[in-house]
């Protein structure tokens, strides 16, 4: 089965296939603290993306020789469910998933006070249940919340968003179809309070001027997402507080 790519992704009024403006995010739904076993967890829906993240730790590290004497070891697994995409994906980790696990870990690492937990490990698991473009960014958004939910001290939340170029126009938060048909995609992760870019990748074809604009667009998307991320985190504690007061 192959999906047909529609001929035009952006109409003459600058409206995209899903009705969004060029600089508009997909609708976001975020929940924090949803898995019983995990020390921290969160769930995100960003358009058709559905992603779960769980954090276990800080905990004893096995095998022990991997332990670091001065800080915790942050481990991250980004994984896609076999049913998350059109053609079944083999559950074995692909090269793409291994690379993404690495860059996501490196995007989150600057935010965590790992030095507070020497010789331990903190494990992050990101499971993509349904994918529609931009899963590494949505995965970072949800993993950062899971870390916060686990009560691990952090410098800032990490928030991520992609921007790119489709049919000659610069657009925010690309869907899978837009990414495949587009000419550039730039995922970016950001710590808003520290103005620090912790993940940056790009593939495509951009002049330096376009690059600067796309970079700003992605940062703007991050700032919008950050507000929703904070709301979701607060909502969990409001719910906990209400539950306690009822008792």
């Amino acid at each position: 089965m192959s999906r047909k790519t529609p001929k035009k992704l952006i109409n003459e009024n600058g409206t995209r296939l899903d009705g969004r403006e060029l600089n508009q995010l997909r609708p976001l739904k975020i929940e924090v603290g949803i898995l019983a076993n995990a020390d921290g967890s969160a769930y995100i829906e960003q358009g058709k993306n559905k992603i779960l993240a769980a954090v276990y730790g800080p905990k004893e590290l096995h095998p022990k020789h991997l332990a670091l004497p001065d800080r915790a070891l942050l481990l991250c697994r980004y994984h896609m469910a076999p049913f998350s995409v059109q053609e079944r994906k083999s559950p074995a980790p692909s090269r793409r998933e291994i690379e993404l696990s690495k860059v996501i870990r490196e995007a989150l690492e600057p935010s965590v006070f790992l030095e507070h937990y020497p010789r331990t490990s903190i494990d992050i698991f990101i499971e993509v249940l349904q994918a529609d473009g931009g899963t590494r960014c949505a995965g970072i958004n949800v993993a950062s919340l899971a870390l916060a939910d686990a009560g691990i001290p952090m410098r800032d939340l990490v928030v991520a968003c992609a921007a790119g170029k489709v049919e000659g126009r610069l657009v925010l938060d690309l869907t899978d179809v837009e990414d495949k048909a587009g000419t550039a995609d730039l995922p970016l992760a950001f710590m808003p309070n520290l103005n620090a870019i912790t993940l940056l990748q790009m593939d495509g074809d951009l002049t330096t001027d376009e690059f600067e604009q796309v970079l700003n667009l992605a940062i703007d998307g991050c700032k919008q997402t950050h507000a929703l991320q904070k709301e979701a985190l607060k909502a969990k504690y409001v719910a906990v507080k209400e539950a306690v007061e009822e008792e």
Partner: protein
Amino acid sequence: MTSSMSVAKVKQKRIAELISHGKRLDERGLNDYREVQIEVGIIERAEGSARVRLGKTEVMVGTKIEVGEPFLDVPNEGVLTVSAELVPLASPKFEPGPPNENAIELARVVDRGIRESKAISLEKLCVTPGKKVFVVFVDVYVLNDDGNLIDASAMAALAALLNTKIFNYEVKNGEIEIKPGYTQLPIVDYPIAVTFAKINDKLVADPWLVEEQVMDARLTITIDKDGKICAIQKGGYGYFSMEKILEATKIAQQKAEELRKIVVKD
């Protein structure tokens, strides 16, 4: 914060101090590359090959061409496959076994540069649409790691592709019949990767091993022949400010032009 244990703290401090004064331990300027030496056509069995020396870093790339099936979504295009091996003889830190995340990242960053700049005219590698196309295998073989494997590998891959030949052929009843002689693989762009390390909030180009061990973060920018950016990869546990990233893109454009003259002759 995350510097390696294998460089003494004293040395780390010395490197950072020097860099804040615009100097480096090996006496290069902050934007200077180590000497680049390139040899091509060194492996006769391979369809194309190159060995790049970037200072003491040494990378060999061999290309092989096979007949295979196209991807369903692009039935008229040949296939590009890039792999990288961090061969154990190249460093005391490399171990035998399947490629780890560093090898995979290296291969994928080199791949992205070639693919996104559309360096190979893949549509010219179609034999029978939807059925038979040429598959170009680019195998990166790291022989000595003294830092900045990405740039050395990207240069070696480009040099090897420029050196790659495909056998002449005719299609008879859907089968390929090999004819005498060879044709050059069609290469139409020349992507060059330029990598920076951020140390003490300064950018240094072409970090060598000791600098990689003390860096906060790494940024690779790949520039195509028109000076456009075709791939970016941030690595390492630290972060970059917007200003540093824009500064890096400007330097990368100059450096790419200089390096391209060394890799692409005439």
